[in-house]
């Protein structure tokens, strides 16, 4: 039934890939065609008394842990003016508004419950999105349609179809997109990937990715919805259930361990170490062809995502990626080549032989995109209309690996995947799991 849309997706993707062959080449639409700064130049002066008209006007949707952290990051950028914050929990949006107003020493930041009102504001150029995973696709697609550029938290989406819908919308409207996979802009990750890409450990045949281990909890009683929280809005497209405290700070953190909202540590961290694995392999715009593995799930209690997990992905070129929780594979990314290995995680870069780490990358070798500041890179790209260091298709392909692993583990069998068409081969049940029906009135 999905034949048409598949071809449309391929069209959009091919078109996108066609114009980004060289990093730094303006993509989709020459910036000259739109005016140098795109939407930015046309923005009205944001808040009275602040407004240099060339500032990037931003709204922050979702201002919890990650969201308020990202917001503070943008508040520290002199070229940014934050004018709107949005959260379904009143306490959080009020706190965020106060942070913004304190920073600008005025009372101008508007606080919203409904993200659609932020998306509709024509004075806003860019959005920071940091929401539970079930809420990743809908605001992103709406915002692209409204011409916003986006800095959005990983994982890209809760399902593969939702991820593809985000990619399509971002490509269709030529938006600048930065996935919050900030490891690309810091630490040793760039160096590790450049060594691997330039053959310093020979031809790579396998890569191991270790991600955190999950846990379980007891059953939690249904409770009245706390003051100030719009629970129905928080659930959004996810299946209805009555409110209960998820274990810390209402529903705001531990949703990560409930399958309706997240895939657990696996999908939470895929946007980091799987993303880096792909970067080092140059497989950022494709996916595996075979996936197989097993997960260990809590048999009772509120949480239902895998605690332990291990799955292998075979790529078309024969490379095998194994992803597991860090009790089975050490946390981080480790590539194995013919002549050695390179291992990288936060705060650590190792290689065998160790001399690999002394290697210099010559002028005619592959130079990977360099960014030292993930948010700055996004802001620079808003102005230049160039690709960011973590563009949308790449973010989609990183999380796809985890989502494919999730489906393979839930079904308990080996799956064959066509990364071009993004469908499973000869597995009708698996294909059903590529998308999730949304609770009304939400849709893509």
């Amino acid at each position: 039934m999905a034949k048409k849309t598949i071809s449309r997706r391929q069209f959009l993707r091919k078109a996108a890939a066609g114009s980004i062959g060289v990093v730094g080449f303006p993509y989709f639409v020459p910036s000259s065609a739109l005016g140098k700064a795109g939407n930015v130049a046309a923005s009205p002066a944001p808040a009275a008394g602040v407004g240099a008209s060339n500032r990037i006007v931003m709204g922050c949707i979702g201002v919890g842990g990650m969201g308020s952290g990202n917001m503070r990051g943008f508040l520290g950028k002199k070229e940014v003016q934050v004018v709107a914050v949005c959260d379904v929990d009143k306490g959080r949006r009020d706190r965020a508004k106060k942070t913004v107003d304190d920073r600008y020493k005025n009372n101008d930041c508007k606080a919203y419950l409904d993200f659609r009102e932020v998306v509709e504001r024509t004075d806003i150029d860019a959005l920071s999105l940091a929401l539970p995973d079930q809420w990743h696709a809908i605001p992103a697609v709406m915002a692209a349609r409204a011409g916003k550029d986006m800095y959005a938290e990983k994982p890209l989406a809760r399902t593969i179809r939702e991820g593809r819908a985000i990619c399509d919308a971002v490509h269709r409207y030529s938006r600048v997109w930065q996935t919050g996979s900030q490891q690309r802009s810091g630490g040793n990750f760039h160096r590790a990937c450049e060594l691997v890409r330039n053959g310093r450990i020979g031809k790579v045949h396998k890569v191991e990715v270790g991600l955190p281990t999950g846990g379980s909890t007891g059953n939690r009683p249904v409770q009245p919805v706390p003051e100030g929280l719009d629970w129905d809005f928080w659930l959004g497209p996810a299946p209805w259930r009555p409110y209960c405290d998820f274990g810390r700070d209402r529903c705001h953190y531990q949703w990560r361990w409930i399958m309706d909202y997240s895939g657990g540590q696996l999908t939470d961290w895929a946007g980091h170490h799987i993303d880096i694995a792909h970067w080092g392999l140059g497989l950022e715009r494709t996916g595996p062809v075979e996936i197989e593995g097993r997960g260990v799930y809590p048999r009772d209690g509120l949480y239902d995502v895998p605690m332990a997990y291990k799955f292998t992905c075979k790529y078309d070129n024969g490379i095998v990626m194994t992803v597991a929780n860090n009790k089975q594979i050490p946390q981080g990314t480790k590539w194995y080549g013919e002549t050695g290995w390179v291992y990288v995680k936060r705060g650590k870069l190792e290689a065998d032989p160790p001399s690999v780490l002394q290697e210099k990358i010559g002028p005619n070798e592959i130079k990977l995109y360099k960014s030292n500041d993930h948010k700055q890179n996004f802001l620079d790209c808003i102005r230049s209309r160039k690709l960011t260091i973590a563009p949308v298709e790449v973010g989609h392909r990183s999380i796809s690996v985890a989502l494919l692993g999730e489906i393979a583990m839930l079904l308990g069998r080996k799956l064959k995947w066509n990364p071009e068409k993004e469908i499973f081969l000869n597995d009708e049940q698996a294909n059903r799991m590529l998308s999730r029906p949304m609770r009304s009135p939400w849709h893509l």
Partner: protein
Amino acid sequence: MSQRSKVINTALLVVLCFALVGDAAPLKALIVDGQNNHNWKGTTPVMKKILDGTGLFKVDVATSPPKGQSLSSFKPDFAKYDVVLSNYNGADWPKETQDAFVEYVRSGGGLVIFHAANNSFRQWKEYNEIIGIRWGGNEKTGPYIRWRDGKVVRDMSPGGAGGHGPQHAFQVVIRNKKHPITRGLPEKWMHVKDELYAKLRGPAKNLTVLATAYADPKQRGTGEHEPILFTINYGKGRVFHTVLGHDAPQMECVGFIVTLQRGTEWAATGKVTQKVPEDFPSATEVRRWKDFTNPKPVISSGKETEMDELLEKVKTYDWGQSREPLTKLSDLVRKAYGSPAELRRIERSLVEVLRSEATRAGKQFICRKLSIIGTEESVPTLGAMLTKPKFSDMARYALERIPGAAVDEALRNALQQTTGKTKVGIINTLGQRHDNRAVRALRRLIRDSDPLTAGAAVAALGNIAGPRATRALAQAKDRATGKLRLLVCDAYLKCADELAAQGKKDQALAIYNELMKEPKPINIAALRGRINLLQKKDKK
């Protein structure tokens, strides 16, 4: 997460992680028999049947030449197997076979010693170390192993090794609840009428007592708690030793069957993945499985199957309660994935729950299952739920994923009978299913007075694309204003992208050109579409 649950999880994980990513291939098991003062011809097929009941093993049998004949030709290839089970109590094996056996165990092979197998090879030093304690011997053989005051006591009193009183039913007491073999078993359970081996003695190195039974002096017993189930580590090898099971009738005991199954898996792999069956013997009552297999199959046409019991629990399940019945039901569904006939039977019983007075949470769970395994057979019941606001979302959760024209038809019918949010949900699902036959109804809804309904209809047409949907959107664009116009243009763009993807460039280009007259950001998207299309042309 609480500190306590963290500790529990860590403990759980340490064990579970080893259980991950096992080879899908069955474990290879070898039963050795051919000589025994017991009915080996009767018990070996029972052992095989019991192992087959787990679905984990591929079982071979190596039968030695009969008593009195030369054993020089008897050379089973132990090294080929994950686990060897000895049902042998006879003449000494040739040296070569003995060496191969010891080397097999030492280097990590699994071994199960069954009942009278511990009577054999009295003079073979390594064998006695491998099996821990034995029947036949004296104080030179090693200590008696007794359970006294909560611990193992090595009793060096002089005396013979092995003995039993008359057969009687006796209680087995688990002494080590953390071992993979015994974890989850009831602490005390009744074994059927059988011999209670007593006074076993031997080197007992690296021996772990899992369970004991009290040898009651009234039954001419020792008055001691005698080891009944135990393990020995020899080199890298794991040995499970059960003294139970004199003959086939004794092997009907569910306790015997389950411990043999679990013990064999542990010996083979060091872990146990099997679940403990629910009808395990209690502390006072024996439980037998006639035919040595679990009489409660996953699914059967009769009542009171495991499935039926779980479905009853699902009917009363509510949020906040234990999810365990749901997990167990999911396991049963997963087990049936490979069998369409089984899945159809399960589907029918799931649908029954939807027709009952089950809780909302219970019905939602059922709909999640049907979203994966449902067929057109579920459609009448799910279709009837579509028009009920409280159940419509969960019905769509299942229906949206179920293939077939019957689903589309049910959705189109429900479209006419619903309003508001319920209707919006159905519109969205028709769009997701790319139902061309819904275009006529959807194009009318673009003019609906409710903006949510109109917007949903527009988005659905964009998702359907196709010639009729494209025409509907082209016409709608000329009439629409404000926010709706932006949505129509977005959907129309999708149709153009679709046409471009199909190679219908002129039609696509016409739409892009038309949309370039729209305000930002539609014109940007139209321009991008145009450029892509023209770039593609240039390449050709």
